[in-house]
């Protein structure tokens, strides 16, 4: 297939190359000389006559031609009335300097503008000029200009551009741009190629192209229009026959038939009422008293009475609609007449759609992973305090908020966003660690045997902290700007892409997973934490100080919430209410995953992230609905696995 494509390309390119060879040799004339040959067409250009002049210029191969064409287009070329020579000018006012077109040297100083005419090509001429310019831009030494020219072609595919585009492929030094040129040339062949074989070959090459442009080409080839006929004519390229009632609503089908044939209109209730109102005579309409018109059947009866008298037009009854739908066929016909081309395009389109669907699934999975890592970050601190210590901390969301505001305040003092981020992460940890330890010492310590009241007391702390943040920072959202290197997105192709911030959050989540596992499994503190979790009294009798361990654990969980706050603040706005947005989901994550287990939290976050994105996929316009259904699912899920996905077994599970 590739060989066919290359052959097609070569065939199309050869004439262009030959043409170039024809014009290249010969005497090397001056630009001014060529211009003088076509003096009249250039000085007073019109769309019909300017063609040969531009061809001569484009064919001359002179270096100054593109610049001249551009200036000509921009009305910057002047003609001297005395001898008809063309110049650029320098300066403004009554007298100007004349510049030579080729060399740019000053030919004459202080020339009065009275003797000069500005050439003003009209819109049509300018379009012809810019088409000619494209081929120069396509081979321009400046890569940006070449790219712009390609963008211009891609925006508006035009068969005339095929020649210049192919001509420029061979000389293209940049491999990426060359690939793009070949691709564009292929698009042009697919849509406007001369022979069916060339087009089919080009279309087949598109089957592996899932870019937006490629898909647009295919869908343009597959453009259809809806037609109505009693019999489908033989000479149309039939796409499909539409069945009224299944493929399109019956009302619409009937309306289409009315365009093709003389059929009575279907009147809607308001139309009927309007006509009835104009024919009220002595309290009666069509022989019926007005009082009987309060039902739909009464109105139809009255209308039919009027119609029988010829006062109003016939209306379509359900029977006439049925008859019309039965005797007429509605079909979609391709605008493209060649069925071989449309068949190939349809096959290519199917394969592209499969690829796009796979790409979208991958994209969705990436989104889900990033959402899961956000939930994981938000919930992991809670998993430690709630899971390990059995303490419900309703102020956890406010610790997230404290972390985010720490990031914001650090940015106020440190201009460099990268540095401020590096400072903010440990600082947020330190501040929320301190806040967590303080809360544990002052409040939670007294409530270890009353878990429900911990919930209430920490809720009190939560509303106080939230209002405090509102008093200090105001109600409007504060920005937490990410460093420049986190801007933008990693674009894999037109379908799959993910922003760098989300990748960074994912990496951060992984780091924390590793760090926590390390602390819990490999350090003295972790050992003591696990011991206190499993049996506080036994741990105490082994010489572990449970008070200190609980304090440290709570501080750790809160500190991680602070860091999560910085991460969340980077991609969402920092407000005093951001904590309460995450608190319920965080609890869900912990409960679903299984309490007292880092892996459980990971499983819970993954489940919730994928679930939410999955539901959003089926109903993309409505994230609220996705959240609603997700919570309902979780409520049901807990029915079947009350201890979560990863349930602790044995005595450690407690009750």
């Amino acid at each position: 297939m590739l060989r066919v494509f290359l052959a097609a390309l070569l065939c199309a390119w050869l004439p262009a190359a030959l043409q170039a060879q024809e014009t290249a040799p010969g005497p090397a004339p001056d630009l001014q000389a060529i211009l003088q040959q076509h003096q009249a067409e250039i000085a007073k250009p019109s769309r019909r006559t300017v063609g040969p002049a531009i061809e001569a210029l484009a064919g001359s191969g002179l270096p100054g031609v593109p610049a001249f064409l551009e200036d000509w287009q921009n009305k910057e070329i002047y003609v001297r009335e005395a001898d008809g020579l063309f110049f650029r000018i320098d300066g403004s006012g009554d007298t100007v300097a004349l510049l030579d077109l080729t060399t740019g040297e000053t030919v004459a100083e202080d020339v009065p503008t009275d003797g000069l005419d500005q050439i003003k090509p009209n819109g049509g001429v300018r379009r012809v000029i810019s088409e000619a310019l494209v081929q120069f831009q396509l081979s321009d030494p400046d890569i940006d200009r070449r790219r712009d020219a390609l963008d211009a072609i891609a925006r508006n595919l035009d068969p005339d551009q095929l020649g210049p585009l192919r001509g420029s492929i061979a000389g293209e030094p940049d491999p990426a741009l060359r690939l793009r040129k070949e691709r564009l040339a292929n698009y042009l062949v697919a849509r406007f190629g001369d022979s069916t074989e060339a087009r089919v070959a080009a279309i087949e090459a598109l089957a592996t192209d899932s870019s937006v442009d490629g898909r647009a080409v295919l869908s343009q080839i597959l453009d259809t229009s809806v037609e109505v006929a009693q019999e489908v004519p033989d000479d149309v390229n039939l796409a499909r026959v539409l069945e009224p009632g299944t493929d399109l609503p019956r009302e619409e089908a009937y309306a289409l038939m009315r365009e093709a044939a003389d059929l009575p209109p279907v009147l809607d209730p308001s139309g009927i009422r309007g006509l009835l109102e104009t024919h009220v005579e002595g309290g009666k309409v069509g022989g019926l008293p007005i009082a009987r018109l309060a039902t739909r059947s009464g109105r139809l009866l009255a209308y039919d009475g009027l119609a029988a008298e010829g006062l109003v037009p016939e209306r379509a009854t359900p029977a006439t609609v049925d008859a019309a739908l039965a005797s007429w066929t509605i079909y979609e016909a391709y605008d493209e007449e060649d069925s071989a081309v449309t068949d190939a395009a349809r096959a290519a389109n199917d394969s592209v759609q499969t690829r796009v669907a796979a790409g979208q699934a991958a994209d969705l999975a990436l989104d889900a992973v990033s959402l899961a890592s956000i939930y994981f970050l938000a919930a992991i601190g809670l998993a430690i305090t709630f899971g390990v210590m059995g303490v419900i901390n309703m102020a956890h969301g406010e610790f997230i908020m404290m972390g985010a505001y720490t990031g914001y305040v650090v940015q106020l003092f440190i201009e460099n966003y990268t540095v401020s981020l590096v400072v903010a992460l440990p600082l947020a940890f330190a501040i929320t660690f301190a806040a967590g330890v303080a809360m544990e010492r002052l409040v939670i310590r007294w409530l270890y045997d009353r878990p429900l009241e911990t919930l209430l007391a920490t809720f009190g702390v939560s509303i106080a902290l939230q209002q405090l943040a509102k008093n200090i920072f105001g109600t409007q959202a504060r920005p937490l700007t990410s460093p420049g290197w986190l801007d933008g997105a990693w674009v894999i192709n037109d379908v799959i892409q993910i922003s760098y911030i989300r990748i960074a959050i994912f990496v951060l989540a992984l780091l924390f997973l590793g760090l926590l596992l390390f602390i819990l499994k490999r350090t003295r503190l972790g050992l003591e934490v696990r011991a206190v979790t499993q049996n506080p009294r036994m741990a105490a009798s082994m010489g572990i100080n449970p008070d200190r361990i609980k304090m440290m654990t709570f501080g750790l969980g809160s500190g991680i919430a602070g860091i999560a706050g910085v991460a969340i603040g980077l991609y969402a706005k920092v407000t005093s209410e951001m904590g309460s947005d995450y608190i319920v989901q965080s609890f869900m994550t912990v409960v679903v995953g299984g309490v007292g287990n880092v892996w459980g939290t990971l499983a819970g976050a993954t489940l919730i992230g994928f679930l939410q994105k999955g539901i959003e996929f089926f109903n993309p316009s409505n994230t609220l609905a996705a959240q609603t259904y997700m919570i309902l699912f979780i409520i049901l899920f807990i029915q079947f696995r009350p201890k979560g996905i990863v349930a602790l077994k044995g005595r450690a599970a407690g009750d």
Partner: protein
Amino acid sequence: MTRGFLAQNPSILWFIGLLGLFTLGVTVLSEAYGTAVLSTSFVKTLGKTLCLCLVAIAMDVVWGYCGILSLGHFAFFGIGGYAIGMWLMYARTEAIVTENLAAAVIPPTEAEVSDAIASQIFGVVGASEFPAIWAFAHSLPLQLAMVVLVPGLLALVFGWLAFRSRVTGVYLSILTQAMTLALSLYLFQNDSGLRGNNGLSGLQNIPGFEATPQSQISIAFFWASALALALGYVLFAWVVSGKMGSVIRAIRDDEARVRFLGYHVESYKLFVFTLTAVVSGIAGALYYPQAGIINPAEIAPIASIYLAVWVAIGGRGRLYGAVLGTVFVTLLSSWFTGGGAPDIDLGIYTIQWTDWWLVLLGLSFVAVTLFAPQGLGGLVDKLVRKS
């Protein structure tokens, strides 16, 4: 039996007596039937507070007596409000539409009237047809049944699922909070059929009483709220006294032991949970015609937590405690946030209570939980014991 019941619960007579005196006092001072010392809007505030007291004693029964910290009772309250609000809005819009269409040359069909009402109500969310949940909105008795049935059924199904799988303690709290969040998120959608975040409005206009001034309507609702509160108080006092009350309190103190004694704990819990949900729905149905508007923000999980706060401050495990806490916190809150409290000038910083009230509330709530778990009711206990 009745005598025994009242003798067991002397607080009932006290409560009803005080409530009666209060109602009488407000009526005498009202604009409609008295000296007009109290403005109509203040009468409405008092009436609303009585409804909040009713939902608070329901919360007290389910939490303070049965030990289920439900963070969903304000959702049941909101559902009751929505149920009555649907009828209020439908009937009022119907009256307006019928009046408009009466001028037409040809009498309107039923379909036309219904379409016109629907486009009036749902135009704001870009819809023009009645969703299925409005099927009974045309009828007051059916919609009143909804006030009771919808919260009751929801609580029954949710409670059955939760209690059956032995979800208890903080897990149950989180689960009820999730239910509340799901409900409020659902209602926030425009295509929920309940006007999204616009909510239902104009509920203070009672169809059929367009000519009656708001001052009289407000007093009527105040009486109704007071009556409902009195009945609710007696009902719950009856539920928590006697043998059933003992079982319920025993479940709070040690659920496993009650189960081992042969009681079917789940049935008791389900009964209490559902009954209190129904009463919450009724309280909501009385509250929102006085408030005039209901929207999904009212149902947000935070509202249910505040409910727990009132009960905790008033003192759990005693019905009058819930009433005390609700009245104390809501009135104090409106005094502070309404600009009634004087600002405190610290020289470098002026404490404005509209900003700092929530901080104070949060911290005092922590203090109450830590130092006075019995709440305001504990003070009453001390007084009673001294005398």
